[in-house]
């Protein structure tokens, strides 16, 4: 069928089953937007900033497991999208971003709104394309979606010069993809898996180290089955919260810089790390030379480059977690779980010794209480997104996540301003869920313009602003490591959050007491409007435990002991 390049873009989006596209038009992408106007198969959400469009598509992808799609114009439209691409890249999120480009004849002439998009995005995309002829376009679009979702997922940029969107050509969307140089490995090497299973059977203190790859691979049920079958304790990374389920007795909690005591001690004392889709990030390992000194390592990852990148690996297994765990399960029949009983008891004592705790107060709201309260009030009914900083860590530590894809945050890049647009993407995918963006008074302002988008499209996400009038995490470091010189972190000059929300068609709440919080949250849930819930919290609350940057994982600054708290 003959059609324009712009039409081909729309046809590909439809063929890929995409229901929602987030974007922002401009000169170079106008022909595509003209075709979007004419079609009725997918909706387009006009965000108020390109970065937000990409984060929204990212949130959509993280919540659904499908490919998120965002569309931007050339030049500044594209450069605004770069943070979104990098965010998705660091967390391996499947996404296709389509950008307009100046016409082919103008490329290289410093034309209006021309920038080398593929050059800029090369280090922050899984792959990218500058389309150089219309005949290539259908294949490139097909490949983009395929590359984004296959293997280790990631964002793919397709940069399309304007004249190619205008030109008319024959369109046949390819049925399949053949890239001879790209063949992801899904099945793990059977011999390697057998060796790993032998190591598990011989270990005394094994530990399941669960990363975001388990979420991406949709392997959480298999991982839970493996844990149950072997009775091996588990720790989760920030990206894996929800995989084991908060109530799972084998889950020690989150490990790393703000992990709990038992998790970090387990990692420090284990004799066998069994790593599933985790990448030994510096925020997890602390000082590498002190990390898991007594452990052999089984490392399962779909990306060979992750294996032995930072720590030596004894049993490397390249493959999809789902496939590998399936194989493992069949080899683990009749495993003697008593073998690890002493180990479980040691860890239980660690849990009792220093549980995740904080001292609650009736005078001032504590952020940890807020998070726990949200968990009690909405729990599994909610999907939680977050920005970056203290609030993110409190949410990761204290929310009772009971399934993966319930916790959506920028882990690798740590992008402030991610949470709100991501929440919009999540809410669009799951309108029946309560979607709460746990944010701070710093982060929320980084994409505050999306209040307008959320109001226009009636995307009622709740922005829970844990307001300490500080860039809290930086302030915390300044308190600990910079002799309390609070350089440029005091945010006590604040907007009127309630009025700000209302000015954009949303609803605002100012909360200073526990009673107010309960009422405000219930009210916000019943409203069909985007909301800013400004919660005044203790200004100098710290995120604890904390492993000081560059320190050994077992050297934690511990939280003050509370009388009544003792949960993960």
């Amino acid at each position, binding site marked *: 069928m003959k059609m324009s390049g712009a039409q081909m873009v729309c046809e590909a989006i439809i063929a890929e089953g995409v229901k929602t596209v987030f974007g922002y038009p401009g000169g170079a992408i106008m022909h595509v937007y003209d075709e979007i106007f004419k079609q009725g198969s997918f909706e387009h959400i006009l965000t108020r900033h390109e970065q937000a469009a990409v984060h929204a598509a990212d949130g959509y992808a993280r919540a659904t497991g499908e490919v998120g799609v965002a569309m931007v114009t050339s030049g500044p439209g594209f450069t605004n999208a770069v943070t979104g691409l990098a965010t998705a890249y660091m967390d391996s999120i499947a996404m296709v971003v389509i950008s307009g480009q100046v016409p082919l004849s103008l490329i290289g002439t410093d034309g209006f709104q021309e920038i080398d998009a593929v050059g800029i995005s090369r280090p922050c995309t899984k792959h990218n394309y500058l389309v150089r002829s219309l005949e290539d376009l259908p294949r490139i679009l097909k490949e983009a979606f395929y590359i984004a979702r296959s293997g280790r997922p990631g964002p793919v940029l397709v940069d399309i010069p304007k004249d190619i969107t205008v030109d008319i050509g024959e369109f046949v969307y390819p049925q399949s993809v053949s890239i001879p140089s790209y063949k992801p490995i899904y099945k793990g090497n059977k011999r390697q898996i057998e060796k790993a299973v032998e190591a598990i059977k011989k270990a005394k203190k094994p530990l399941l180290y669960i990363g975001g790859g388990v979420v991406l691979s949709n392997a959480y049920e298999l991982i839970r089955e493996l844990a149950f079958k072997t009775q091996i304790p588990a720790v989760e990374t920030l990206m894996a919260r929800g995989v084991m389920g908060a109530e799972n007795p084998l889950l020690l909690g989150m490990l790393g810089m703000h992990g709990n005591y038992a998790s970090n001690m387990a990692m420090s004392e284990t004799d066998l790390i069994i790593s599933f889709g985790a990448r030994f990030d510096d925020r997890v390992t602390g000082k590498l030379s002190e990390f898991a000194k007594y452990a052999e390592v089984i490392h399962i990852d779909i990306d060979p480059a992750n294996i032995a990148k930072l720590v*030596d690996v004894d049993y490397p297994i390249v493959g999809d977690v789902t496939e590998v765990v399936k194989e493992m399960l069949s080899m683990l029949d009749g495993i003697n779980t008593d073998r690890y009983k002493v180990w479980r008891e040691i860890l239980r004592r660690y849990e009792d010794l220093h549980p995740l705790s904080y001292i609650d107060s009736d005078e001032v709201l504590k952020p940890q209480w807020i998070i726990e309260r949200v968990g009690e009030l909405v729990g599994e009914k909610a999907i939680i997104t977050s920005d970056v900083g203290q609030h993110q860590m409190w949410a990761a530590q204290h929310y009772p996540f009971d399934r993966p894809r319930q916790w959506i945050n920028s882990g690798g890049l740590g992008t402030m301003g991610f949470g709100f647009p991501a929440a919009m993407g999540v809410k669009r995918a799951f309108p029946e869920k309560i979607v709460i963006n746990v944010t701070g008074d710093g982060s929320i302002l980084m994409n505050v313009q999306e209040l307008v988008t959320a109001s226009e499209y009636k995307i009622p996400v709740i922005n829970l602003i844990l307001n300490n009038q500080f860039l809290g995490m930086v302030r915390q470091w300044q308190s600990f490591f910079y002799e309390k010189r609070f350089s440029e972190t005091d945010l006590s000059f604040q907007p009127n959050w309630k009025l700000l929300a209302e000015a954009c068609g949303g609803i605002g709440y100012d909360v200073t007491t526990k009673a107010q919080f309960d009422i405000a949250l219930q009210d916000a849930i019943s409203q069909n409007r985007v909301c800013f819930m400004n919660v005044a919290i203790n200004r100098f609350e710290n995120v604890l435990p904390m492993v000081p940057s560059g320190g050994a994982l077992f050297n934690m600054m511990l939280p003050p002991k509370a009388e009544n708290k003792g949960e993960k």
Partner: protein
Amino acid sequence: MATSKTLQDQNVRSVISVIVINESSVLARVSGLFAGRGYNIESLTVAPIPNSQTSRITIVTNGNIRTIEQITKQLHKLIPVYKVIEHQEMVEKEMVLVKFPLTENLSDISALCTAYNGGIVNVGAQMCITMITDEPSRVRHFIEATQRFHPLEIVRGGVVALEI
């Protein structure tokens, strides 16, 4: 995690051949990877492989064992990279062009180049150009030896290698 630190941290020289699909910006992807991740490039050569849709990039790099392993893995991750060969047993050659002033003794220069599998390839009014092709260590010796003839310009071609 028993790591024998000394061995791990020792810098080794490594020759890596990368077979890539011929497409625009593939060289930028490869060189950008080295720049972005802080890997060294000692030399880099690239040319199409005859009768194919692929090109061969030969890179000489150095780093500790883990770094070299990461380089090969990261290269392989690039979508248009078809094959990565970390050479063990290889024939490794480099070409060098040197320009000498004609005030120097031509027969001495010619004898020197002959010793390194080369010779004089061009003689002009003021200068002559010689070419040699040899192994990298011998290339180094050759360049040292040329110094007494006051070379005007030296061009090294970068290493190419084939696994034996």
